[in-house]
């Protein structure tokens, strides 16, 4: 619709397109997520203190710089005298692992089911969508509780719970997208060319519905960390010595009035992560939409 703006101008160098897109990267989102991801990957090597080393005599000290005691305990210490900063840094791994793997598993399952449902329609669609309905009609947190009560607690259980609770969203969204894409001219054209169903799914439909799945995923990452926190609140989160932000926040609620630094720093980490993934999601949505990309 806007040929004059087409980028096929004669002065384009190879790579220029990539550079332009890089420039439009959500720098803020990356700035937020990069430290988080670094912590997740290298947390144990970055920390000033052993996050598990207890020192009961040092319990519940406020951030050391506030007391003019230098930078030894940047974020203070917890009820066992452990360094909160180190725990927040190391906690990134479990939080990210549970949410990334959980959301990833949910995504794979949900996308596959959504694709089948949307492409084949009819009875397959009816059955799959009823399954989605059934799951959605069960309250998520209660479902999560039931699952973790059955699986026991721990990182694996939390991840499984996240996957089980979240797949339906993908299934619905991808199904809707597939229904739309399947009628698009390029899919029709692929059929005119004699495309086989697997090729159609893989080459034409999946690449065109995966965006919305990615956007859903980016939104769900935050929700997944929250679910982890809620499970911890109800007593079923990850297990020590594993550290996760949700668990830290949930456990520190006893100290809300007396040791503000306990919930605050993991809380900030959580907010930054969710904000980052949401911004990234917004950007993804725009960036992956070729029409918007042109503007």
């Amino acid at each position, binding site marked *: 619709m806007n040929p004059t703006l087409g980028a096929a101008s004669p002065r384009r160098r190879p790579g220029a397109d990539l550079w332009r897109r890089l420039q439009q990267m959500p720098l803020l989102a990356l700035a937020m997520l990069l430290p988080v991801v670094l912590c997740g990957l290298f947390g144990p090597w970055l920390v000033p203190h052993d996050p598990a080393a207890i020192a*009961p005599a040092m*319990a519940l000290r406020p951030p050391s710089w506030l007391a003019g005691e230098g930078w030894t305990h940047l974020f203070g210490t917890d009820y066992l*005298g452990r360094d909160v900063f180190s725990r927040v840094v190391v906690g990134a791994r479990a939080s990210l692992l549970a949410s990334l793997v959980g959301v990833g598993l949910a995504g794979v399952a949900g996308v596959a089911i959504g694709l089948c449902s949307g492409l084949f329609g009819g009875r397959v669609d009816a059955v799959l969508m009823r399954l989605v309905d059934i799951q959605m009609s069960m309250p998520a947190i209660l479902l999560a509780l039931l699952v973790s009560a059955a699986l026991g607690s721990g990182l694996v259980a939390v991840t499984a719970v996240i996957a089980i609770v979240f797949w339906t969203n993908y299934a619905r969204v991808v199904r809707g997208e597939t229904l739309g894409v399947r009628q698009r001219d390029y899919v029709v054209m692929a059929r005119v060319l004699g495309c086989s169903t697997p090729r159609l799914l893989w080459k034409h439909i999946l690449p065109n519905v995966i965006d919305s799945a990615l956007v859903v995923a980016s939104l769900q990452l935050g929700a997944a960390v929250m679910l982890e926190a809620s499970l911890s609140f109800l007593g079923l989160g990850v*297990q020590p010595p594993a550290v996760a932000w949700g668990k830290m926040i949930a456990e520190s609620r*006893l100290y809300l009035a007396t040791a503000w630094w306990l919930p605050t720093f993991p809380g900030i980490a959580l907010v930054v992560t969710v904000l980052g993934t949401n911004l990234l999601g917004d950007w993804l949505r725009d960036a992956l939409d070729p029409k918007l990309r042109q503007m």
Partner: protein
Amino acid sequence: APDKIGIAIGEDPSTLDQSASWTGVDYQIAENYGEFLVQRTPAGELKPGLASAWKVAPDGKLIEFTLRKDVKFHSGDPFTAKDVLFSFERGRVKSSTSKTRLASVERIEAVGDYGVKVFFKAPDVTFIPNRGGVMMVSKAYFDRVGEDAFAKQPVGTGPYKLVRYASGESLDLERFAGYWGDKPKIAEARFFFIPEDTTRVAKLKAGEVDLINACPYSAVKDLESRKDFKLVKLPVDHPTMSVVFATQNPKTPWHDRRVRLAMAYAVNTDAIIKNVLGGIPNHWVFLAPHELGYDPALKHYPYDPAKSRALLAEAGYSNGFDLKLYYATTGRVQMNAQLAEAIAAYFEAVGIRTRLVGEEWLAYRSRYNASRKPTAEYVALFTHGRAGSPDPTYNVSLFFGKDGPISTYANADLDQLNADAKATVDDAKRAELIRKEVRLIQEDVPSFPIYNNVTVYAMKSNVVFKPTLKYNLDLTLVKDMSFA
């Protein structure tokens, strides 16, 4: 002074019917309107209650109760021996706790309207300390209203009657004008059920209630520093938070006494109590000082990591070993997870590679039951029976006896000693036997204690409350409250 009081407690009772009460919270509420045959004073002494007197036969197999004649239920029905028989029958069926307490009873007979004879299969020194096992309910009322109304709108003989109950929300009590005993000072009480600790404390701070129970240790310092509030600490002692071993499996490192001892030496329980638990709980070696057989000479396992490592090396574990430490992630014990983390860290420090396995209450309980098998590999943070039972022999058989239903330990010498002690009615002699038992256990380390529970009541500074001592429940009896 006001005569209405608001109280926030952690949980709903599971039943209102006092004859069916079986959990701690049930008793917290129900003992305000239901009563036992025998009473306890706030100081913890036993005194006549609905039974004005009782006589224990010399062989300990029969107790004869004489009932008060002036007692009326809230429904207006008089209290008689028929009610006692009915209550015992009902309690045995309806309440698992009562069933246990009445296990030693062979039969009960009424002697006229105001006398009751209880026959035992074997002497039971816990029967009177347990105040006669069940709270009294009215047979006449039951016959009149039937099961449903009886369970929903229970009547008792207590100083208060139950007027309203909203599940999950609150419960109202009102002074019973026809009460046989001393008239309590407070006319009305409302219990709020606030499961979240922080909220419960907030409710007190906001002035919405006058008193809360199970005040979290983390809030104690803050409340103590404010002059509007005061705290009452009640040693409940039982159960005693301990590290418990399933000792029977020879394949496990802790089958070796030295390893268990090493682990006891590895944990700085004093530091935990002081820094993590706010210095509030008690730390008894085994029994509380007021208990029969208390041994002042007995000392704690000291915190001695060097000795711990030496013992481990001696037992052949100089490189440590892998350990799974089980603990409960839900349930009513506060700061369980924190405690588990601390203990795990101490074990790690002497080379024991500890993996914490937190389980939700039921799974945790099931695992404990399963660990009674001699093949079990089991070390857990568990609430063991040490101090604060009706009688020390009762807990020893329960928790340390070979056939003890919740024992993961077996020691023929101990069993023999305990059998002797149980059969000894003479207190001094029994005390000596108990001291021997305790020393034996202390030496063999089937478990080692971390702390003994002290529950904290927090209240506005104008509230006067004397909770019942020397008893293993944190009762919240309105009759013992008043305003200054």
